[in-house]
């Protein structure tokens, strides 16, 4: 059942992105920015985590989860260390995603030639 909800919820988030690009005529960069900020806001008001529990990868794979993870890391450290934790914890959860993207992209630049 989780697979079905992952498909539907993930699909809907992508449709929202497509509408922002086609109907609101935003550039892809603007669209991604809007989605990331939305994810952060949704986690701030406590709505994103229930969505992850409900849809699994449908909520964690779209870029909105990046905003959610940033707030999550910041809040987790803030609970332990107070206000300074907001700064120290902000990349705590997203570290895997950013590091992987940087390392693999660097390797790709060394190994591959751009096509077309």
């Amino acid at each position, binding site marked *: 059942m*989780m*697979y079905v909800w*992952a*498909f539907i*919820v*993930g*699909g809907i*988030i*992508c*449709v*929202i*992105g*497509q509408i922002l*690009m*086609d109907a609101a005529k935003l550039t892809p960069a603007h669209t*991604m*920015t809007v*989605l*990331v900020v939305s*994810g*952060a*806001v949704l*986690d*701030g008001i406590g709505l994103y985590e229930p969505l*992850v529990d409900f*849809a699994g*990868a*449908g909520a964690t*794979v*779209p*870029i909105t*989860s*990046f*905003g959610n993870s*940033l*707030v999550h890391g910041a*809040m987790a450290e*803030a*609970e332990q260390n*107070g*206000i300074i934790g*907001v700064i120290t914890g902000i990349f705590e*959860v997203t570290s*895997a*995603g950013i590091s*992987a*993207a*940087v390392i*693999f*992209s*660097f*390797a*790709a*630049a060394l*190994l*591959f*030639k*751009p*096509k*077309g």
Partner: protein
Amino acid sequence: MLSMSDKTEPKQNQAYQTFAKQSEPSIPIVFNCVKAFLIGGALCTFGQGIRSLFIHNFDFNEQTAGDPTIAVLIFLSVLLTGLGVYDKIAQFAGAGTAVPVTGFANSMASAAMEYRTEGLVLGVGANMFKLAGSVIVFGTVAAFIIALIKTIWIQVTGGSL
């Protein structure tokens, strides 16, 4: 002089606007949305498969399985970008491949590869975040403000709403 251009320019402008609108290719929004839904949904279902794999076969739980899942997806995305496959799919899928985290990795890998000729430091290093940078900057700023407000709120009110 001013009055002349005042009269002619709006007219020309208007004529140009209507002309531009006519020749603008109309966007098949519904068709694009269906494609985005199917391909984005398929990508997330695939992600769910990897997530289940990490939960059942390795020592991860529901909370910690997100990180390795995203790392695997990013690896596959960068690999497909390097082979030139991802951009072909992306042309068809639109937001279906742009919105998932794979699109984020794709933008970094293609920027890194594209600027490779300008050198490792000034090319790859300086341009990798050219497209992905806005996501990180705005995500971080938004998360900072939200977490700050929430933390202060919890400290002042003691956690109750």
